[in-house]
């Protein structure tokens, strides 16, 4: 954030246009390994800790630094009169550091309260979705994997944002619509089906309302979409149809009393039956050292052998530098299903540095 470059862009005409370009960024350098794990013998999967679903950050029994390390650059330019443009390029170890635009949008501030955005953005399903990549902004190594399991991470569309206050309550809200056509979805193609899978979420329509009052923060969200999927080019059929509708509901509540804080999130996805997830976490700030605990759970409500897994985590964040934090976290995952097993049971240790600049 401290790095700011001012570029003077000279227009072709006789007038001179000043466009201030701000560059800021974030990075995480993370290592880790599975200490012990069952893997999924029926799928031929060795002991694995799937730390992240959409990006498929998978740790094995050998120490590795690539699954979750990343560097992101945000470039934004204020064009004046409320108009700005922002791009965020992220290079991930999980993708051999191939840099990609994850965000690219134009923003127009209608007035103090309303902003309209159009372009490519993060799909704001969960409390931590929007700043998922910015490890410095939250206490854990990562947002709990059991909650953040959905295939689609970004969308292209439009977003109307409100920000205001009623008395001592701060209110922010947004409504968004759009679609995402992921021609080779990483989670489905590389992990679950191991065949090229195209995942489409269309007619996405969602809303988020966030309220904050001193120590309390509440977030409520709802989103609906239509899902289509092609495996090896063949349309996937659900009950004889080539599409299905999903409805997502989420509630997050955070309480921060200065030193003690409690974080929680509850989500339901209704997609031919309910998939429920929740997370609860607590921590204590001893000046620059913040130990924390976290429990997260995923449970499919229907079926004889439903998908079911949970994670217990304990860790420490140490703010050793004004712009960087060191973190270390132990995760114990239990995977209780057979046909829908994800990565089996595992115990693992991950550590790393998150920074912003």
């Amino acid at each position, binding site marked *: *954030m401290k790095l700011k470059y001012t570029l003077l862009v000279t227009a072709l005409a006789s007038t001179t246009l000043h466009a201030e370009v701000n560059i*800021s960024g974030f990075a995480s350098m993370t290592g880790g390994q599975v200490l012990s794990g069952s893997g999924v013998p029926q799928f031929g999967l060795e002991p694995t800790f799937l730390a992240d679903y959409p990006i498929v950050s998978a740790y094995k029994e050998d120490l590795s630094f690539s699954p979750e390390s990343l560097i992101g650059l945000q470039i934004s330019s204020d064009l004046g009169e409320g108009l700005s443009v922002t791009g965020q390029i992220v290079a991930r170890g999980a993708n051999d550091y191939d840099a990609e635009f994850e965000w690219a949008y134009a923003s127009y501030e209608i007035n103090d309260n309303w902003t309209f955005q159009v372009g490519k953005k993060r799909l704001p399903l969960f409390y931590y979705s929007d*700043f998922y990549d*910015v490890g410095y*902004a939250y206490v854990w190594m990562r947002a709990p994997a059991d909650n953040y399991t959905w295939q689609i991470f970004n969308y292209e569309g439009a977003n109307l944002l409100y920000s205001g*206050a009623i008395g001592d309550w*701060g209110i922010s809200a947004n409504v968004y619509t759009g679609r995402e056509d992921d021609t080779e979805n990483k989670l489905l193609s590389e992990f679950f089906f191991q065949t090229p899978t195209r995942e489409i979420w269309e007619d996405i329509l969602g809303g988020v309302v966030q309220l904050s009052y001193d120590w309390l923060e509440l977030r409520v969200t709802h989103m609906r979409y239509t899902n289509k999927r092609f495996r090896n080019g063949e349309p996937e059929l659900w009950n004889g149809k080539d599409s299905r509708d999903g409805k997502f509901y989420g509630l997050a509540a955070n309480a921060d009393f200065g030193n003690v804080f409690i974080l929680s999130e509850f989500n339901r996805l209704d997609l031919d039956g309910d998939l429920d997830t929740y997370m609860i976490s607590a921590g204590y700030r001893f000046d620059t050292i913040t130990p924390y605990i976290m429990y997260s759970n995923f449970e499919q409500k229907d079926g004889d052998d439903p998908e079911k897994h949970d994670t217990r985590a304990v860790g420490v964040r140490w703010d050793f530098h*004004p712009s960087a934090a060191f973190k270390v976290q132990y995760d114990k995952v239990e995977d209780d299903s057979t046909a829908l097993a994800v990565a089996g049971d595992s115990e693992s240790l991950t550590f790393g540095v998150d920074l912003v600049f």
Partner: protein
Amino acid sequence: MRNLIYAVLLSSAFNAYAGVSVIVHPSNGSSFDTSTINRIFTGKEKSFSNGNKAIPVSQEPGNPITDEFNSKALNKSSAQLKAYWSKLIFTGKGTPPKEVSNDAEVIKMVSANPDTIGFVSSDSVTDAVKVVQQF
């Protein structure tokens, strides 16, 4: 004897800490309390109660006065505040206040622009600005 020690301790404490003064342009008649100041400096409130746009001016993170303001007015450590702003910056939801390097620069900006609000060490306050809150 004990009273004397107390007096010495107290006076030295006061000398070391002049306190933080939150300042605005003398023409700004808006009402301020700790909660309003907190919301303006965390980007949750964008206008003064007089209806004008509010432009907060902060100081560099290394300045002792910045830490004092952050902990007393915003109830956050510098690291917590940085984490808070990273969340907003990288999601396109907000921009942190502009940072200047010392009290004199804050006073210069605030005395020149009726839309600004800043904080300085109480020792540095001049007639060119109006103090609306002290911590």
